[in-house]
């Protein structure tokens, strides 16, 4: 009985892990990068330097919005946090004067001037790809990602149950032992960061909970809007009166809201009916100021600047949810904990990647003729190459494109993203046409070379290369270039290892492999 249970769990773990592993690998890799999304954005906007002040940034944003959309229906301002230097604004133009598509948002520097030199979506793209993917409807992507996360949760639990000796093998990582090494790598990365994996998977589901499991809200509320009003306290905006009254100065209001929250920063401002007598300003506390991702809000009359309401979602369940989302996104983390998040995420990425490789390594030995595997096996092998080496190369190329594409290119930000996927596709195709083992070595080497090229190209195309940054004490840029070099070294090592495995396998092919395979099967 216990054997059947373990066996069916193992089956489930193997096959769901394989089917969703490719997606999970991409989610883990981009999610890990997203812990440094603000730093990545800074690196991708080398023309922007210095830190921003929230009150000044808010005033600058209003100055900008007053020139582009003085009579817009609403304005949205995301203020810079302590790690970023830019302000994001988005506006809804007035109903009478619709703006051309795509011209309703802008990135501003700390003085409220539009940044036009190097259009990029920066680290924000990697963050959004983590759950919105790309080239597909966001809704579909989020359901796909949710299914993968749910399987991950079940896979973690079933993995713990299946792997009897999980704690006896706690420190076991043996290199150069073929299948055993891959199993070790999979187990060690899984077990060492097990608390992180459980937390990140569960809280990941929670971030989009109302989409995956809307029935808890539907049971108590006929319309979901009533629920959101109760939680966020956003009243429906009043109709504009048509009487023009200039908007109150945001600087003092930002300070006032911040004082209400014990000095915690304002993160987000939305303004309904700006420059109208019925204007209303809603401010939300910055997510980096506390564990809870769902910030308190304060509302002001936009014409007079008078505080008209403050909202603080309370209750145990709402607070728990808010903290869970905060734990997932890690916005509150200072640099020390941020690196721990990054390392744990890297562990998760390796766990999924080694699990994918393990699937093929385990089966290769059992194949009737290991030198000529069947179609399904070959497909998995190729998809693994595309998923692992392809995505890595793509991300490196995304950074390279940021430095190499012409600065005045039309829809430059989109072209950067296209470069990522073109490189990914290229590696995928390379993996298809080359013999699989050789393709591994080659694509891993390409990924390593691309990462190594990033600091070089950065030094050649900007004045903020590794050496000048080091001399200036610009640790964001120093760390970025160093991480690129570490990744390059990692992929180079992986390429060398895979080449060694190849020569060993070639030398021992034939009867010896077959005999070894039989031994594994009968064991």
């Amino acid at each position: 009985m216990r054997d059947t249970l373990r066996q069916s769990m193992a089956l489930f773990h193997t096959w769901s892990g394989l089917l969703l592993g490719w997606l999970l690998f991409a989610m883990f890799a981009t999610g890990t990068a997203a812990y440094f999304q603000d730093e990545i954005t800074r690196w991708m906007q080398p023309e922007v330097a210095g830190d921003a002040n929230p009150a000044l940034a808010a005033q600058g944003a209003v100055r900008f919005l007053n020139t582009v959309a003085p009579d817009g229906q609403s304005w949205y301002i995301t203020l810079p946090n302590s790690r970023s230097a830019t302000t994001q604004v988005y506006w809804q133009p007035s109903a009478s004067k619709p703006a051309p598509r795509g011209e309703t948002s802008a990135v501003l520097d700390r003085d409220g001037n539009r940044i036009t030199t190097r259009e990029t979506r920066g680290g924000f793209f990697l963050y959004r790809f983590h759950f919105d993917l790309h080239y597909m409807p966001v809704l579909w992507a989020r359901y796909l990602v949710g299914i993968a996360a749910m399987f991950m949760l079940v896979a973690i639990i079933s993995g713990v149950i299946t792997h009897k000796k999980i704690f006896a093998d706690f420190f076991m990582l043996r290199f150069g032992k073929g299948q055993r090494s891959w199993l070790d790598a999979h187990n060690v990365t899984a077990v060492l960061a097990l608390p992180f994996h459980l937390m990140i998977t569960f809280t990941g589901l929670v971030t989009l909970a109302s989409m995956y499991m809307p029935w808890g809200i539907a049971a108590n509320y006929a319309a979901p809007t009533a629920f959101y009003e109760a939680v966020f306290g956003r009243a429906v905006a009043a109709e504009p009166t048509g009487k023009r009254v200039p908007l109150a100065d945001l600087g003092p209001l930002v300070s006032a809201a911040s004082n209400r929250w014990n000095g915690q920063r304002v993160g987000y401002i939305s303004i309904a009916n700006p420059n109208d007598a019925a204007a209303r300003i809603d401010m939300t506390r910055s997510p980096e100021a506390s564990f809870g991702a769902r910030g308190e809000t304060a509302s002001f009359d936009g014409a007079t600047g008078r505080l008209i309401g403050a909202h603080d979602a309370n209750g145990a369940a709402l607070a728990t949810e808010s903290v869970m989302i905060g734990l997932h996104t890690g916005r509150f983390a200072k640099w020390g904990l941020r690196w721990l998040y990054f390392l744990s995420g890297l562990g998760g990425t390796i766990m999924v990647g080694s699990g994918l490789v393990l699937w093929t390594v385990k089966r290769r030995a059992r194949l009737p003729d290991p030198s000529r595997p069947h179609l399904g096996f070959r497909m998995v092998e190729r998809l693994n190459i595309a998923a692992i080496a392809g995505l890595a190369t793509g991300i490196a190329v995304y950074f390279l494109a940021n430095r190499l594409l012409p600065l005045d290119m039309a829809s430059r930000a989109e072209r950067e993203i296209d470069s990522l996927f073109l490189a990914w596709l290229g590696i995928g195709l390379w993996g298809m046409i080359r013999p699989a083992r050789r393709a591994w070595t080659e694509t891993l080497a390409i990924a390593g070379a691309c990462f190594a090229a990033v600091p070089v190209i950065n030094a050649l195309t900007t004045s903020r290369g590794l050496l000048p940054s080091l001399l200036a004490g610009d640790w964001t840029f120093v760390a970025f270039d160093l991480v690129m070099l570490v990744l390059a070294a990692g992929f180079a090592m992986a390429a060398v290892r895979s080449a060694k495995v190849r020569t060993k396998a070639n030398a021992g092919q034939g009867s010896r492999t077959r005999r070894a395979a039989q031994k594994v099967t009968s064991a």
Partner: protein
Amino acid sequence: MIHVLALALSFAAFLSLAVAMKRHQRDLTGRTLTDEQARAARTSGWLLLAGALGVNIAALGSAMGTIVWFGEASVGAGLTVTAINWAVNRKAGRGAR
């Protein structure tokens, strides 16, 4: 600074726990420990881990301290795995010579 101290404690904790395990003793210490020594290593491992938690909580508060502790425990365990590998390789190298 507090991260360095707590990380060192976590690393020491997992090294002790590894030393307490039969399969890693020979690699790390060059000999097999008596049951008593192994028990002492295991106890000190858990105590060190608790100490790391205490340091984190004292410095960062109970919520932040616990979160950071989990992360540092993972890194400490990872360092231990690296250390064991290093010890094994060194021994293998010496054996070959």
